Every structure is written in structure tokens, then in C-alpha cells.
């Protein structure tokens, strides 16, 4: 803590110029836009891969109840490991190089708990009478799943996607530490170069992206719940 280098850093940072607009203009296309695109790629890729895993696991857990507690136990433990620690553990595995791959693996791991839990909750929310009616109409189990249960569960699944996406956009910034790219690269560069403008640019864009994703997915969630809309009006 009594590192003289750190004290020097503090003196430099006490200069009050927080936003260097010149720098933002000059580096917009070279630094900021690629970081933003990289962040979108990392976040949405991770949530998409997580969905491909979580949907079948969620459906199986909803059907075979015994599977569900061990699934939530394992994904729950994954979820509670701090991201920097999970990145560190992943890059310690032989054959895993630093870069976007371990970041995406970790982000997928974090999304699983939320997505699986909401898939199960969504299927559980389908009233038994509705399923009885479907069966009475002669639908097979597979048809009931795809035509009745999953469509009715969709709003709750989308709610899970929304929470996972907002969480993942935040955690993805930390991935830049192990060269995952994205907006975190701006934040870490800003810390290392003692340049607040980069920190603020990364922070504002990551927050903005999270809020936009939140609002869009909330809109989708409402759109998929026409019965709730009808009740409200």
C-alpha cells in the first residue's frame, strides 16, 4: 500500500479533466466502435449458447423432477464464483488460451442458472387444465410441449433471457482482463494509462447497452404476454 508509484498516480489523477472530447472524436472509429461491437458479440454469443443448453435442460428438469435439484446445485455454484476467479481458473486449464473463448465459457456458465430456472418456472406456470384440454384434443406429448407448454412459458423464459443478458453485459467488461475484448478493454486501458475519458466511455457504453437490452427484452416479454395486456386495459 505504501507504494510510491501509486501515490504519484493519485497526483496525476487529481487533474480535474474527466472527459477529453478531442480524444473521443479522434478514437471513435478505431477504438470505441470495435470495443462496442466486440462487447455485443461476447454478450449475445454467450446468452445464445447458454440458451441452447438451458432450454433442453430446463424442459428435462421440469419433466423429471429428480434432475432439477442437482442441476440447480451445480449451476448455482457456478453462478456464485466471482467472475475474475472463474476467468483465472479457466485460463489455468491446460490448452485454454487467454482470449474471447474462456470469457464466453464463463459467461455461458453464469447464464445457465437464470435461464434454466426460468424455463422450469415457465413450464410450471402452465395450468394443468390447459394441458388436460390439449390432451383431450388428441395432442401427443411432443405436440403439447411445443404447441402449448413452451409458447405459454415463453414470457417467463424471455424474462430469464433479459436478466441473464443484463448480468452478462456487466460481467463481460471484466473479460477484457484476459484479452476477451469488448468495452472492458477501454476501462482497463483507462486505468492503466490513468486516463478517465476511456474509463467513462467504457462505463457509459456498457451501462447504455445493458439498459437498451433490458428495455427491448422487456418489450418482447410484454408483447409475448397478450393475455396480460388484455387484462390490464
Amino acid at each position, binding site marked *: *500500500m505504501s*507504494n510510491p508509484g*501509486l501515490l504519484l*498516480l*493519485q497526483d496525476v*489523477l*487529481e487533474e480535474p479533466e*474527466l472527459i477529453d472530447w478531442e480524444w473521443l472524436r479522434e478514437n471513435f472509429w478505431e477504438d470505441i466502435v470495435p470495443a462496442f461491437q466486440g462487447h455485443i458479440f461476447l454478450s449475445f454469443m454467450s446468452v445464445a449458447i447458454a440458451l441452447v443448453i438451458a432450454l433442453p435442460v430446463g424442459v428435462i428438469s421440469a419433466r423429471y423432477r429428480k434432475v432439477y435439484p442437482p442441476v440447480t446445485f451445480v449451476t*448455482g*455454484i457456478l453462478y*456464485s*464464483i*466471482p*467472475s*475474475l*476467479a*472463474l476467468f*483465472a*481458473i479457466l*485460463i*489455468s486449464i491446460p490448452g485454454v488460451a487467454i482470449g474471447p473463448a474462456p470469457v464466453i465459457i464463463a459467461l455461458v456458465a453464469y447464464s445457465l442458472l437464470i435461464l434454466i430456472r426460468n424455463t422450469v418456472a415457465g413450464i410450471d406456470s402452465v395450468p394443468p387444465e390447459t394441458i388436460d384440454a390439449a390432451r383431450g384434443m388428441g395432442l401427443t406429448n411432443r405436440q403439447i410441449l411445443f404447441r402449448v407448454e413452451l409458447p405459454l412459458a415463453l414470457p417467463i423464459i424471455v424474462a430469464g433471457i433479459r436478466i441473464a443478458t*443484463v448480468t452478462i*453485459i*456487466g*460481467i463481460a*467488461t*471484466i473479460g477484457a*482482463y*484476459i484479452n476477451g475484448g469488448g468495452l*472492458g478493454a477501454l*476501462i*482497463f486501458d*483507462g*486505468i492503466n494509462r490513468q486516463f*478517465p475519458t476511456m*474509463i*467513462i466511455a*467504457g*462505463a457509459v457504453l*456498457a*451501462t447504455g447497452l*445493458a*439498459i437498451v437490452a*433490458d428495455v427491448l427484452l422487456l418489450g418482447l416479454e410484454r408483447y409475448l404476454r397478450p393475455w396480460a395486456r388484455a387484462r390490464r386495459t
Partner: protein
Amino acid sequence: MLSKILEVYARPDFPEKLREHVVLSLVALLVAVAIAMPVALTIRNTRLGAAIAINIGNVGRAVPSLAILALALPLLGIGFASALVALTALAIPPILINASTGLREVNKDIIDAARGMGLSGGQILTRIQLPIAAPVIFAGIRTSAVQTVASATLATFIGGGGLGDLIVEGYSRRGPEILLAGAIAVAILAIITEVGFGALERAFTPKGLKIAQKRGR
């Protein structure tokens, strides 16, 4: 590898890093509770207040934890104190959201019944609203605690110390055993926090509520 990791734990600076990590997390959490709870109590009966609290909480959740810590650097300088302020700011939203929704969602009929029995506003709060909302409030504190322990790992980037120091040391010096030692210690601390606060949450759920929950399921 395992013995090398254990050697890191035997280093004289390990207890110090662990202590810093626990102090950072615990103090941030306590201050956050001390700020969020009075706010939640004050606004518990107003619609507008609750809407504002939830929106502030939601926006707060959208700000990446790394961003809050990094922003503390130009604003507050480097070191333990600014990491503590940043972590406190991060710890508030989950507590505020859960406390204000928990208190608001206490069944109005129950409150009416209590009022009919002659309980005062203060009595309704301490004997009805708080016990019924306790599980939701503690769930918020647990979320916040686990998140704070995780974010405290990032304090190292602004000179705040903690177990993140080991991860950074291991990463920059290419010392895989130091990297793993730090990561495993942080992971265990986070899981202990999750399990410990989960137990606290159950302990603070009133007996009557537990019975009602079981019947409901």
C-alpha cells in the same frame, strides 16, 4: 500443483489479503444496509417512492461493477477507501429493491386486520410488515453480499487490496499457482457467503410463514 498452491496460502501476506477482502465486503455491506433500509422504510407506503427506488435500483444494476470501481479512481483516487465507497454503491441496489418490494407486498388485508386490532403504525411495522417481509429483505441482503464479495476481487485494479491482488500477481508474473490460489480462495469465500446468508435468510423467516409456504407448494 496442489502443494504449490498451499505454499501460497502459507505466505505471510495471505492472511492480510484475506482480511482486506473480508473487511471491504463486510463494511460495504453494512453501510449499504444502513443506507438502503431507512430509505425503504421511509418510502414503504408511497407508490411514487417505491417506483423511484425500484428504478434507481434497476439502473444501478445495469452499471457494470468494474465500471463503478474504475470510476472511483478518477473521482476518489486510488486505494482501500475509494474501493470501499465503490463497493458500498454497488451493494445498495439489491437491498433497496428487495426491501421496498418486500414491504409493499405485505397483504393489505393483514395490515387492515392489524389496524382493526388496534395496532399503531409503528407496531404494524415491527410486528407485521417487517417479519412478513423479512425473507425477501434477507434475500436482497444475500444477493448483495455475494455480489460484494465478487466485486471486492476487482478492488485490486484501483489499489484497494484484497484477494484480487493474488490473481493479478499470478496473472502478470505468469505464476499459475498464485493465480489459482487467489481464484480458489475467492471462490470459496463467495460460496461460504452464499450458503451462510442462505441460512440467515431461513433463520429470519417466521415460523408461521414457513408453514404457509409449505402449504402453498
